[in-house]
C-alpha cells in the first residue's frame, strides 16, 4: 500500500489505541497510592532474610533469580545474533588476516589525553558498582554496562584496536562466555549445597551493609557484570569490524 494509505490507516488505528489506553489507564490506582502487597512484603524481607540492604538487587538475584538468568541469556544470545548476522556472506570479498588489522583513527591529542585519563576511573567505578551490588544502588547489570562504556570511551578517544578477521576479539568472547557459564554454575552450586537452583543461602549470611552480605548475591553480580560487559564488547567489536571492512574497500578502490 502506498505511503499515504499507510498513514491514514495508522491514524485511525492510533486513535482507537489511544482511546483503549485511556480507558485502561483510568482503572489503575492513583499516582502515588501504591496498592500492591508484593512490594511491601519484599521490602520487609530484604534485610532480615538475606542481609541485603539493596532490595532491588535482592529481588533480581534471589527472589526472581531464574527470570534474571533468562534475561541475561537474552543478552548473551543477542550478542551472538549480531555477530552471526554480520558474518561473512557468500560472494563478499574475504578479508585475510593481515598486520593492517589495527584500527588507527586520527583524533586530536586533546581527545587522546581525555580518553586516557577517563579510562582508569571509569573501570574502577564499574568494578565498584559490581562489587557493591547488594549494598547500594548498583549491581551486575549497571557495572557491566559501565565496563563496556570504558571501551567505548577508549575507542572514541582514538585508541588503536586490533580486530581479527571474521571473529570477535578473544578477550571479549572469553569474558562473555565466562559470565554466562558462571551464572549457571553458581545456580548449580545453589542446587548442590542448598537444595534449590539459584538459591543464595549456601554462601553464608554476612552482616548487612558490608561487602560480604547476601550469600551468593555478590558472586552472581560478578558473573552478570562479566557477561553484560562481554556481550556489549562483542557487539561493538563486530560493528567496528564492519566499519573497517567498508572503509577498507573504499581505500582499496582509491589506491
Amino acid at each position, binding site marked *: 500500500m502506498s505511503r499515504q494509505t499507510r498513514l491514514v490507516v495508522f491514524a485511525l488505528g492510533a486513535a482507537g489505541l489511544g482511546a483503549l489506553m485511556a480507558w485502561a489507564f483510568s482503572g489503575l490506582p492513583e499516582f*502515588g497510592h501504591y496498592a500492591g502487597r508484593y512490594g511491601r512484603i519484599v521490602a520487609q524481607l530484604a534485610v532480615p532474610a538475606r542481609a541485603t540492604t539493596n532490595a532491588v538487587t535482592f529481588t533480581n538475584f534471589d527472589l526472581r533469580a531464574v527470570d534474571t538468568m533468562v534475561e541475561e541469556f537474552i543478552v548473551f544470545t543477542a550478542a551472538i545474533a549480531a555477530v552471526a548476522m554480520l558474518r561473512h556472506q557468500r560472494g563478499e570479498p574475504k578479508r585475510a588476516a593481515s598486520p593492517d588489522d589495527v584500527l588507527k583513527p586520527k583524533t586530536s591529542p586533546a581527545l587522546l589525553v581525555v580518553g586516557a585519563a577517563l579510562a582508569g576511573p571509569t573501570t574502577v567505578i564499574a568494578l565498584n558498582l559490581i562489587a557493591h551490588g547488594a549494598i547500594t544502588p548498583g549491581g551486575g547489570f*549497571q557495572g557491566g554496562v559501565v565496563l563496556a562504556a570504558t571501551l567505548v570511551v577508549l575507542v572514541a578517544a582514538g585508541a588503536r584496536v586490533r580486530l581479527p578477521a571474521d571473529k570477535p576479539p578473544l578477550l571479549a568472547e572469553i569474558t562473555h562466555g565466562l559470565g554466562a557459564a558462571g551464572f549457571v554454575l553458581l545456580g548449580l552450586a545453589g542446587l548442590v549445597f542448598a537444595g534449590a537452583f539459584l538459591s543464595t543461602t549456601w554462601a553464608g549470611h554476612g552482616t548487612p551493609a558490608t561487602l560480604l552480605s547476601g550469600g551468593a548475591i555478590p558472586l552472581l553480580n560478578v558473573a552478570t557484570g562479566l557477561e553484560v560487559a562481554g556481550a556489549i564488547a562483542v557487539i561493538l567489536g563486530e560493528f*567496528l569490524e564492519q566499519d573497517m571492512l567498508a*572503509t577498507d*574497500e*573504499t581505500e582499496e578502490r582509491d589506491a
Partner: protein
Amino acid sequence: MTAVQAVLLVLVAVAGTLLALTREPLRQAIVSAIFGLTLGLLFFALQAPDVALSQIVVGGVALPAMILLALAEVRAREHRDDDE
C-alpha cells in the same frame, strides 16, 4: 507528585516527541542521547536509583555509540558505491 517530577515528565514527553519527529539519523543519534539522559533524571526523581544508573549509561553511551557505528558503516558503503 512533586514539581520536579512534573517538570521532568513534561521534558521526557517533549524529548520523545522531538526524537520521533527528527528526520536525519545522525541528528537522531544525538537527540537519543539527550532523551536517554532525561529519562535517567526522571527515574532518579521517581526514587529509582538502580534504574537511573542503568538508563544513564545505556541511553547516554551504549545506544548512541551503536547507532553512530551503524551509520558510519552505511555511509562508508554508500561512498564506495557512489565512487563506482
